[in-house]
């Protein structure tokens, strides 16, 4: 008895029991599609997974950069007299080895892309107008591409006998 009563002002609830008996072959229950169900009309994807890959890249490149950059600091600033030994001859000695060429190349690319993606996030967070976001990101991408190309060329075209 108590389950059948409904409070005043609230209509009978679908599936509450009061009406279940009335559905049948001649009066089928309405079909409700599950929310977010993919159908033929649903576009395959409304957007790509770019931000997820960016997020993953920050973590993967970050782990590699910890090794590359801390190794770089150890060699340049700590071991063998610290920064006082650094000069053209020192650079020539290191880049004679493909190992350090690849090390520096990987560090350049990963650090530039990691930093550029970080700054892209910061621009998206703080630049409020569409126009300023566009300009700041245009400047960022231009500077990033230029610096990566310049650094790569320097590593691959280095000539110890430039004089």
């Amino acid at each position, binding site marked *: 008895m108590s389950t059948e009563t409904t409070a005043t002002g609230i209509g009978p609830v679908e599936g509450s029991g009061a009406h279940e008996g009335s559905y049948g072959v001649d009066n089928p229950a309405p079909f409700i599609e599950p929310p977010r169900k993919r159908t033929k009309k649903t576009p395959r994807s409304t957007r790509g997974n770019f931000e997820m890959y960016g997020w993953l890249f920050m973590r993967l490149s970050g*782990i590699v950069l910890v090794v590359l950059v801390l190794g770089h600091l150890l060699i340049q600033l700590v071991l063998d007299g*610290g920064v*006082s030994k650094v000069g053209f001859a020192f650079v020539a000695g290191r880049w004679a080895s493909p190992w350090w060429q690849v090390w520096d190349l990987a560090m350049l690319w990963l650090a530039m892309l990691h930093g550029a993606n970080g700054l892209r996030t910061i621009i998206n967070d703080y630049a409020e107008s569409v126009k300023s976001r566009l300009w700041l990101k245009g400047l960022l991408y231009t500077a990033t591409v230029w*610096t990566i190309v310049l650094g790569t060329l320097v590593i691959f075209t280095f000539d110890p006998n430039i004089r």
Partner: protein
Amino acid sequence: MPAGTLYRGREGMWSWVAHRVTGVLIFFFLFVHVLDTALVRVSPEAYDKVVSTYKTPVVAVLEYGLVAAILFHALNGLRVIAVDFWSKGPRYQKQMLWTVVGVWLVLMLGAIYPVLGHAARVVFGS
């Protein structure tokens, strides 16, 4: 500012702020550093001249600051990865931050002599 509107995110928020600030500083230094290294393609003299500024006492202090920023960003970045991928990461994020600060302090103490020793000998004489 009206009272009570400042977001009090405590350790989590401040480590996020510090991560952003150090990240931007490191990125801007990176541009300068690729440019100064590119001088090896100009001449040995041009490169050695710009590198000699890195050996002055004032710039040595800036280098110590750069090391401080990089070490914090690296250690806190590993903490962020642990928060994201380790199932117990979010629960221990504060303890991990204080671990980061502790390791950072030890490394910064260890970096005093290697990074600033040269500058100290220049200023105070060997």
